[in-house]
């Protein structure tokens, strides 16, 4: 069995052209992850630039309204650039810089990872090219403008379904043609080893902080941690330091789109089966011949036919649960959190909020739920307005 396995999942299913690049990346990462200077620089960027630690906010009104468990919101939406994506990007950009790379490439779905990469590239004086499905450039026009403003080039990807998976494919193609000076800043806990591990380690700051903050506020661990899952980076970040705490339920919320009994869904664990794609073995939405399914979700960030290999493994061993949330439930939750707490969440994060709204009333008042609010919802307002039949100009 090759490197980077989580149970049967993971591995390095990539063209030979890229093998030395991922080996070089793994060696560099193994060196710098234990290097005190690197960690100090990264912490400074986290704290001074990205605004960490992010708050763990007690949502009193929401808790009382739902009438069950106490709900805490991990406010990753308050990070610089408005989502958890910046954690991983600052880590990878710093690593790439140490490796002598001068150019970053990235894929993006909702645009949050693209904006974060463009931001880090601007900060560190690196060239940046972001691949984004043409369909998503329309859904997330504001983020396209932001990336350009930050000095990045945005390449609309027209192949396949013109969404996140096609953006990943195109970024991989670009990387095979230019490796020497270029680091592929992959945005989720997916792809070939060592990406699932690197991205998880940089995002694990989320659960490290939640643990410290909840112990300080409540003197105990939460009963459940809930996060949305596309590739799964915010979820693994929110879960990671709780994996050893068996009494903490870990719940990932997949995008069911129009429902898991329809073809318009992106719920990988609820509808997919084991396969090999984008450098990894994991669960995939695919047809009987292994052709990748054209997935759908209202959320461009969850609109992906695979899931990170570590989530696939947590699912296999029963350590984490994965539920499916429809567009309609997510939009309701988007509106609910805005009205109830004055916090407009990203439509991705709204999938996690939607499940908490179901779960909280079934729990006792002395129980605790932590929801990872992975991003802010400004980028989604126009699309949600359209979903509700209101045409607004951005």
């Amino acid at each position, binding site marked *: 069995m*090759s490197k980077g396995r989580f149970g049967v999942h993971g591995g*390095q*299913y990539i063209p*030979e052209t890229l093998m*030395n690049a991922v080996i070089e990346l793994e060696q560099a990462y193994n060196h710098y992850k234990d290097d005190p200077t690197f960690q100090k620089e990264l912490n400074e960027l986290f704290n001074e630039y990205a605004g960490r630690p992010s708050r763990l906010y007690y949502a009193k009104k929401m808790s009382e309204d739902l009438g069950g468990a106490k709900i805490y919101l991990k406010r990753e939406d308050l990070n610089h650039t408005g989502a958890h994506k910046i954690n991983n990007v600052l880590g990878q950009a710093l690593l790439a810089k140490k490796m002598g790379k001068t150019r970053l490439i990235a894929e993006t779905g909702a645009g949050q990872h693209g904006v974060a990469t463009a931001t880090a590239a601007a900060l560190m004086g690196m060239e940046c090219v972001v691949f984004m499905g043409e369909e998503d450039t329309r859904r997330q026009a504001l983020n396209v403008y932001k990336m350009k403003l930050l000095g990045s080039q945005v390449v609309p990807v027209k192949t*396949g379904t013109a969404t996140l998976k096609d953006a990943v494919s195109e970024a991989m193609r670009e990387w*095979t043609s230019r490796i020497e000076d270029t680091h592929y800043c992959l945005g989720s806990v997916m792809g070939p080893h060592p990406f699932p591990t690197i991205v998880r380690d940089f995002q694990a700051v989320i659960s490290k902080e939640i643990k410290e903050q909840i112990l300080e506020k409540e003197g105990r661990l939460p009963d459940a941690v809930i996060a949305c899952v596309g590739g799964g980076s915010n979820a693994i970040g929110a879960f990671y330091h709780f994996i050893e705490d068996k009494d903490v339920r870990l719940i990932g919320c997949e995008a069911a789109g129009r429902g898991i009994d329809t073809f318009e869904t992106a719920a990988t664990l609820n509808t997919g089966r084991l396969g090999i794609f984008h450098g990894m073995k994991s669960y995939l939405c695919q047809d009987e011949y*292994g*052709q990748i399914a054209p997935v759908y979700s209202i959320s461009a960030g969850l609109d992906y036919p695979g899931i990170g290999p570590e989530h696939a493994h947590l699912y296999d061993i029963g350590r984490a649960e994965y539920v499916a949330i429809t567009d309609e439930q997510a939009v309701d939750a988007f509106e609910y959190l805005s009205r109830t707490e004055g916090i407009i969440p990203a439509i991705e994060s709204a999938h996690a909020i939607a499940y908490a709204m179901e779960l909280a009333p079934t729990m006792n008042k002395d129980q605790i739920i932590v929801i990872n609010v992975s991003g802010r919802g400004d980028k989604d307002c126009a699309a949600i307005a359209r979903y509700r039949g209101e045409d607004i100009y951005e």
Partner: protein
Amino acid sequence: MSNIYKAFEKKKAFITYIAVGDPDLDTSEQIIRAIAEAGADLIELGIPFSDPTAEGPVILESTQRALQAGTTTDKVFDLVKKLRRDIETPMVFMTYANVVFSYGSERFISMCQKVGIDGLILPDIPYEEKAEFEQYCKQYDVDLISLIAPTSSNRVAMIAKEAKGFIYIVSSLGVTGTRSEINTDIDSIVSVIRENTDVPCAVGFGISDPKQAIEMAEASDGAIVGSAIVKIIAKEKEKAVTPVYEYVKEMAEAVHSI
């Protein structure tokens, strides 16, 4: 041992690629017959995959057209079975890992043997991941073809030592497609290969005219052409049989003239 060695037995090999099912299966059948008749020594048959990450736009679009035309793995197996009644030219499949894995790796590879496929090229299976497919390839006498890239450097010897059938040398960085120039030092890659194995090697990616084909075949044991043929099919569609025949004949004669 498969029949791939026959392609390299007497002279330099001219190797072709097409995506099966573009523009449709019937035309593909005629094109494959024409390629064999025109003198190709080894035929790569692409089983289309929805998201081929190692392909440039020409082959990507070809595989999309094949899928839209309703091509499936089972239909490709049926076609090969039919072709094998009268075509002896060695044939290999070129597809992506998930097409094989999803079909059931053992089931797929045993079917290859049954219908007369000699080898399997999986561009997303590097040396480190080959074991799970190779165990069945050995069992059913299907050669799992190894690829070597311009970036392989210290890996060339390791890959060559375990290679079967032939070694596919990727001429350039990037994805498949025609190129005006090939700058990689093929000679030094080939010399490391020769030190480590007797398995023949052929160069692909970027070759489109007889001059390039001769140059690459002289440096190795053969030349592989994909995108240039696929471009003819994209342009001529159902009428591609004759122009593909003429192109392959010219290229094969050039390579065989060495």
